[in-house]
């Protein structure tokens, strides 16, 4: 049961500017994004009775309630899996709304990934206190070996993928060129008016050889985004057309870690995304009726790997799918039309949901004509959003 009968909808979106130094706290950033999302919806703070985020957000729910003036919270939750949990906020919110646990749910993410105490892409030498990397797992198996960064963790999987299917770094570069082309026209994006060619990509320095160059990495970003969700039948009275949560799902597998996901048998396939796709498309939606997709691209290799795992092309076929311009506005699956996390910025994935909502409202900078169904996914969490 992943469909919820379309009973819940996104009715408000809000965002701060995206920058490299916000000059204010994550709490303030979150407050600003949520205030703007409530204003976009036309709802008062007192209407909010649910709060959802995902692991490693530094903003405490109690502090949000205190600053924003929420009155009584009936439901709160956090999705595991780091940024891979970002789209799980839609499942949690829809489950809360359709079960009656909450009427109006806010989802948020606030980061100072560039200017904060620890740069997101920088070396990690201790487990994050809020990441769930306690006990025996994750970091301690990598840290003694200098495998300290998200790029290094994912590179081990990406090299295996390249080996399995004869993929080159230039194949990843072609996807990055498409993302940067979208970003070039998006005033909110880091990549706004910053054109990039495949030659530029191939000249950028190695981060992790043979798979990840500098331009394959998302932008460490400061900022916050927020969503307001409520029941679809209530949405009719609100300010903007509802973006219906048609289906939502998450999938976490045996022996799977978060970014340091090295223990599944075949790392050339993102099998968490395979499981996610099965759950999502069990709802009755079909891949060929999607008008666009927003796919978590913290690093370019996982964009191609997810295109395969989600079933948009066969194993090893993503490089051809990308080279044939299928991610572009005239392609089979316009993807990450805001520039993605690589071109727009990295609000830990959740900014991709805002782009999906803009596509369905018809207000995107790089608008897909008559977009009616848009997929949002982050590795092992995702949703299908629809225009009412």
């Amino acid at each position: 049961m992943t469909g919820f009968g379309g009973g819940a909808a996104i009715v408000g979106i809000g965002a701060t500017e995206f920058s490299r130094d916000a000059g204010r706290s994550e709490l303030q950033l979150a407050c600003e994004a949520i205030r703007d999302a409530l204003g976009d919806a036309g709802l008062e703070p007192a209407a909010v009775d649910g709060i959802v985020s995902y692991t490693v957000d530094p903003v405490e729910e109690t502090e949000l309630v205190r600053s924003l003036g929420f009155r009584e919270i009936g439901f709160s939750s956090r999705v595991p899996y780091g940024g891979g949990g970002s789209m799980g906020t839609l499942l949690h919110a829809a489950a809360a709304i359709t079960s009656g646990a909450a009427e109006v749910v806010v989802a948020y993410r606030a980061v100072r990934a560039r200017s904060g105490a620890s740069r997101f892409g920088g070396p990690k030498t201790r487990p994050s206190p809020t990441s769930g990397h306690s006990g025996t797992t994750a970091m301690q198996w990598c840290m003694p070996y200098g495998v300290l960064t998200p790029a290094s963790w994912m590179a081990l999987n990406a090299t295996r993928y390249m080996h399995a299917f004869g993929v080159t770094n230039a194949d990843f570069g072609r996807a990055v060129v498409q993302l940067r082309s979208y970003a070039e026209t998006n005033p909110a994006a880091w990549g706004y008016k910053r054109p990039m060619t495949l030659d530029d990509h191939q000249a950028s320095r190695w981060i992790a050889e043979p798979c990840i160059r500098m331009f394959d990495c998302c932008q460490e970003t400061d900022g916050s985004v927020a969503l307001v969700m409520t029941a679809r039948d209530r949405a009719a009275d609100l300010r903007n057309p509802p973006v219906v949560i048609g289906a939502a799902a998450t999938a976490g597998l045996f022996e799977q870690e978060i970014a340091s996901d090295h223990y599944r048998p075949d790392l050339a396939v993102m099998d968490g995304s395979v499981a996610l796709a099965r759950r999502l498309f069990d709802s009755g939606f079909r891949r060929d009726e999607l008008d666009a997709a927003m796919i978590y691209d913290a690093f370019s290799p996982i964009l191609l790997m997810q295109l395969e795992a989600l079933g948009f092309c066969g194993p090893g076929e993503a490089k051809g799918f990308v080279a044939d311009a299928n991610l572009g506005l005239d392609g089979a699956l316009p993807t990450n039309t805001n520039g993605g996390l690589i071109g727009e910025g990295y609000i830990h994935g959740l900014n991709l949901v805002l782009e999906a909502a803009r596509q369905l409202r018809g207000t995107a900078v790089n608008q897909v004509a008559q977009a009616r169904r848009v997929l949002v996914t982050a590795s092992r969490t995702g949703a299908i959003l629809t225009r009412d």
Partner: protein
Amino acid sequence: MVTADSAIYWDAAAERRLVAQRCAGCGALRHPPRPMCPVCHSLEFEAATLSGRGTLYSYAVLHHPQHPAFDYPVLAALVDLEEGVRLVSNLVDVEAADIEIGMPLEVTFAPTVDDRAVPVFRPAR
């Protein structure tokens, strides 16, 4: 960093032994360590000494960003041991250009702080 659940692995490594947990209930090997066998739920286990022989499953030559505790480039590896256990480790005694997925490897031990050591891998001789 070492926790109550992971000490079995790192303490053996400090003595230059490569081990994995073997369930005392059903005999299943497992890594990373954990308190309970996921097959039979036994809480009893032993430290099974492994051969140290395996093949390179994947790798990455790490250039940036850099941490002062390591020499760059770091040769990061996923090693599939012949007993069916996969490890994150480093490659030593090999040039980056000579690394090939599938190459046979054997364990050796690299000293770390406090007179301890961690398992690393070199081309099999």
